[in-house]
């Protein structure tokens, strides 16, 4: 059973539809009091970092995620919230990986980084099982997670940034697997099978 966290900002419907398609069971919690048994967590993400952190705090989810021992996947903004700090709204984040979320700036490429781009996996991340190297995934974001030892995949848009991160049970992807066709479904399936 996957616990999906609905903090008002995230696009839970699209992730729910993708989970339905691959036949993975999930439940959605809007508040800590909704949480029952679960084996994994997904933190989806669309929205603004400062507002999202405020919502996670108010709904009692920050500690749950911070102390999570189960496989936990952050998508887009969800992944960025796993870092120490985001320049979007200058907010402290959950701090599960020791790196920062930074605004795309001073470059020739357009912002937001919007559309299908290659994901270059650096090592054998289990999330990318049965997915080919340099596969296209769909991105839509103006802030990125900087390169660090936690980056298991990178993507180039003006600069190279971490398009997937991993730290023990913590996983994050900058792109939207729920909007990335067959490859995206495979990635969600891989997470579901962890």
């Amino acid at each position, binding site marked *: 059973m996957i616990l999906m966290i609905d903090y008002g900002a995230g696009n839970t419907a699209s992730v729910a*539809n993708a989970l339905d398609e691959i036949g993975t069971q999930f439940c959605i919690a809007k508040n800590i009091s909704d949480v029952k048994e679960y084996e994994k967590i997904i933190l989806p993400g669309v929205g603004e970092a400062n507002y999202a952190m405020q919502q996670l705090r108010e709904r009692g989810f920050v500690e749950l995620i911070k102390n999570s021992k189960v496989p936990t996947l952050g998508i887009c903004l969800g992944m960025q919230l796993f870092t120490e700090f985001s320049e979007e709204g200058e907010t402290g984040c959950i701090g599960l990986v020791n790196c920062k979320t930074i605004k795309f700036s001073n470059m020739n490429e357009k912002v937001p980084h919007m559309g299908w781009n290659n994901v270059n996996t650096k090592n054998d991340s289990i999330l990318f099982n049965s997915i080919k190297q340099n596969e*296209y995934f769909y991105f839509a974001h103006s802030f990125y997670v900087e390169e660090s030892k936690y980056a298991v995949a990178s993507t180039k848009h003006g600069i190279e940034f971490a398009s997937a991160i991993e730290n023990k049970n913590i996983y994050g992807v900058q792109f939207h697997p*729920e909007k990335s066709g067959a490859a995206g479904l495979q990635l969600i399936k891989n997470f579901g099978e962890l």
Partner: protein
Amino acid sequence: MLTKRIIPCLDVKDGKVVKGTNFINLRDAGDAVELAERYYHEGADELIFLDITATEEKRKTLLSLVESVAKVIRIPFTVGGGISKVEDIEVLLKAGADKVSLNSAIVHNPNLIVEASKHFGSQAIVAAIDVKKTSNSFTVYISGGKVETDLEGFDWCKKVEQLGAGEILLTSMDSDGTKNGFNIEFLKPLVESVNIPVIASGGAGTMEHFYNAFNETNVDACLAASLFHFNELKIADLKKYLLSKNINVRL
């Protein structure tokens, strides 16, 4: 490297695709959800739905369309048509849409872009802009091209970027429906003057038109409607052709 996008556009009325289907039986065109599913499987990079339902039930029909579409496709999609409030945007995004397209509402109330991009992020806010050539400049039209404004095309595009729009959907009314090609004359200087992605719309008739738009301007995406609905052009064939001409697309 970011690929160039091919975007079928579906003009929808009461759940049915209407534009471009005037000359054939509506049943042949299929409903919007079926067509969306077909385009997803044929390799469309994203889809745009513009709702032209004119009844009071509009909000409900648009929402139910978004819910149904989100269930069957795994690519991003934008919805537009008469959206004028932050609350409406929230409902549509939560139902599974990735972006909303705003047109007349942001001309009447430019602050809507500011509010909406603050709430949902710029990446979710598409400014749809319809321009028409008038003597020696381009003028912005609203209300489905029926009402002339006093806004100049380039100025308004720069303004929506500044207010927080994440993308511009630029329709050239002079080119729309002509099948004579995209409006390079406007698009080329436009993409050089803004730093957000631009979708070219209006005028697609052949594969060369897509190539010309991507080759001669730095637009990020090209949109077409009837060309795809009628099966005059298959998305997969178009993308193979573009790739053979060294335009970076996702196959």
